[in-house]
C-alpha cells in the first residue's frame, strides 16, 4: 500500500508573503501529497513542534523576509533535538546564492529561489524523501 507523503509547508519569519507557500501547498496537494500548512507568523519552536506531532516526511520552509539565515537553521536544529532526524528540509523564497552553502550545511537538502518550477520541487521532494515509505 502506497501512503501519501506528508509535507509541512511552513512560514517562519515575520514576512507575510504567503503567496508562494500557498501555491506550493496547493501544488503538493494536487500531486497527491498530504499537506499541513502552518499559517503565518510561526516561530521556529512552533514549526518544529508541528513537524514532530504531524510526523511529516518533509518540511518546506518559505521565507521572504531575509531572516532565513537565522530562522531556517534554528527550525532544523529544534527538529533534530526532538528526534526528527529523518525529515527532508527544503527552503524557498528570496535566498541569495551565497547563502546557500550555509543553509545546506545546516541541513537543507534543496533551496528553491523565486520562479522555481513547481514540478521540479515536487520531483525533487519525491526523489529525496529520506524516510522509507512503510508498506
Amino acid at each position, binding site marked *: 500500500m502506497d501512503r501519501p507523503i506528508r509535507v509541512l509547508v511552513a512560514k517562519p*519569519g*515575520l*514576512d*507575510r508573503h*504567503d*503567496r508562494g507557500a*500557498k*501555491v506550493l*501547498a*496547493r*501544488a503538493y496537494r494536487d500531486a497527491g501529497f498530504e499537506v499541513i*500548512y502552518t*499559517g*503565518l*507568523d510561526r*516561530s521556529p519552536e512552533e514549526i518544529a513542534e508541528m513537524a514532530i506531532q504531524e510526523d511529516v516526511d518533509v518540511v518546506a520552509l518559505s521565507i521572504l*523576509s*531575509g*531572516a532565513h*539565515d*537565522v*530562522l531556517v537553521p534554528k527550525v532544523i536544529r529544534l527538529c533534530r533535538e526532538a528526534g526528527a532526524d529523518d525529515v527532508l528540509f527544503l527552503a524557498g523564497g*528570496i535566498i*541569495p*546564492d*551565497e547563502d546557500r552553502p550555509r543553509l545546506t550545511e545546516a541541513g537543507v537538502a534543496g533551496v528553491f*529561489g*523565486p*520562479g522555481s*518550477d*513547481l*514540478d521540479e520541487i515536487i520531483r525533487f521532494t519525491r526523489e529525496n524523501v529520506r524516510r522509507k515509505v512503510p508498506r
Partner: protein
Amino acid sequence: MAKAEVQRPGTGPGEPDSERREEFRTLSGLPVARVYRPQDVADLDYERDLGDPGQFPFTRGPYATMYRGRLWTMRQFAGFGTAEESNARYKYLLEHGQTGLSVAFDFPTLLGYDSDHPRSEGEVGKDGVAIDTLADMETLFDGIPLDQVTTSMTINSPAAILFAMYLAVAEKQGVAWDRISGTIQNDILKEYTAQKTYIFPPRPSMRLITDVFGFCSRHVPRWNTISISGYHIREAGATAVQELAFTLADGFEYVKAGIEAGLDVDSFVPRLSFFWDIHMDFFEEIAKLRAARRIWARELRERFGARDPRSWAMRFHCQTAGCSLTAQQPENNVVRVTLQALAAVLGGTQSLHTNSMDEALALPTEKAVRIALRTQQIIAEESGVPNTIDPLAGSYFVEALTDTMEAQAYEYFRRIEQQGGVIPAIENGFFAREIAEASYRHQLALKRGDVTVVGVNKYVQEDEAPQPILRIDPGIEKKQVERLRRVKAERDNARVERCLKELAAAARGTENLMPYILEAVRAYASEGEIVGALKDVFGVYREEPIY
C-alpha cells in the same frame, strides 16, 4: 471578444489566414481582438466618458496641465538597517535628483514588535529600517528639513504611531505641521485581503484610520492621509481587474467610514490617494488607470455627493511590479521596468517608483537603485512622452479596454455588495479566495507556457553569473536592541506609563486617538509598547486559511 466573427480585414489575397495562437488575451485574461474599429467605441461620449484633463470624469488626468506643468514625483522606496544607514541613503538619493523620500520599514516595525521582541529575531533591519522610538525617527531624518521634502511612509496597521513620530520630528525641527507634506499608506483593508501586515481586527483598525483623517483635516492639511493600495493585492496574485475593483471598493469603504465618523466628504476625500501596481501588459495597465479615475469621479459625485472637484479627481502613485521581475537574467528587469514605467506615465501617474533590477534577489544595491531612477529620468526628459496629455485617448483599443475594465469592476462591486459590503467580504474570505484562484491560474498558465516570462520559461540561460547584492550586517540587530535599551533607560518611565494608560482609556471610548498617540511618542514610548496598549483594548486579528 470578436475572434470568430471578425471578417479578417487584414487578410489580403495570398496572405496566410492563420494566427500564432488560438486566442489572444491580456495578462489578466481579457480577450484581445485582432483589430479594433470605430464600432468598438461607438458609445463613447467625449464629455461624459473622457472630458479634458482636469475635467470631470478625469479619465484623461486629474490636472489640466499634467506633466507640462510639473513632472511626476520620482520616489524610490528605500530603507534598511539602522536609521543612520537609511538616513545616508536618503541623502544620496536627494543628491542624485530624487524629489521625494519613501520609507520602507522592517517587518518588526510593520507588525508592531520592538527590535528586542523574541519574534523579531533575525528580522531587524532586514527588509527596511528598524524604528522603535522617536529617537530612531529623529536619526532617520537628521539633517533633512521636513518642509523641503515630501515623504511617503509604507506603513499600515501602526501607521498612526509612525506618523505621530514624524510629526514629533517636525516639531523638534521647528517645522509647522501645515508645512509638511507626504503620504502614509495607512490602508488596512488591503492588508486583510492581500499583504497581511495587520495587527488589530478590521473595525478598530478603521477607527484608527478615520482618526488620522479627522486629525489631519484640522492640523496637517497637506498630508495624504491614506494611499489606498492595489499594489499588494496585485502582487498577491490578483488580476488587473481585481486590483482595480477591490482597491476602489476599499476606497469607497474609507469614504463611507469617514462619513459615518461624522466628517464632511469634501473635508477629507481630497487627501485620499491611491497606489497602483504596474505590470507587464502595457495597454491593460494604461486602461486600468484611466478606468480607475473615471469610476472614482463618478461614484464620488453621484453616490457620495461630493461637491469639491478635488474629491472627484483621483491622484495616485504607481510602482512597477515587483512580482514581474525575475531572479534569472536580472538585467532584463531594467527593460521590464522601463515598459512598466512608460505605462504608468501614459496612464497619468502623480508619482512613480521604479523597481531595481536586483529586487527579486535581495535588497537593491546602490547601482541598481540609480539605474531605476535614471529610467524615469530618461522617460521624463528624453522620450518626449510627457509633452502632451493622455496621448492614447481615442485609440479604439485603449478606449474599448478602458470600458471593459470598468464594466468588470462594476460586476465585482455588485458581488461585494451582495455579501454585505467590503468588511463582510473580507471576513468570509471572498477577496482572498478570488485572489488565490487567480494566482493559481497564473501559475498554471506559466507552467503550460501560455504566458511567457523571458529567462524563466523561455530563452532560459544556464550558468548565470552570480549578481552582486547588498548584505545587511547581522550585527544590526544587536546594535538596535542596544539603542532601544538606552532610550528606555534614559526616558521618564513614569511618564511613559501614564501616557500608555491614558491611551488605553481613550481607546475604550470614542475620542480621536491621535493626540494620545502623540503624547506617548513624545515621551519616547516604543512602538511595541503603544501597539501593546492598543492590543489590550482592540484584540488581534487572525488570518483566514484560504489557499
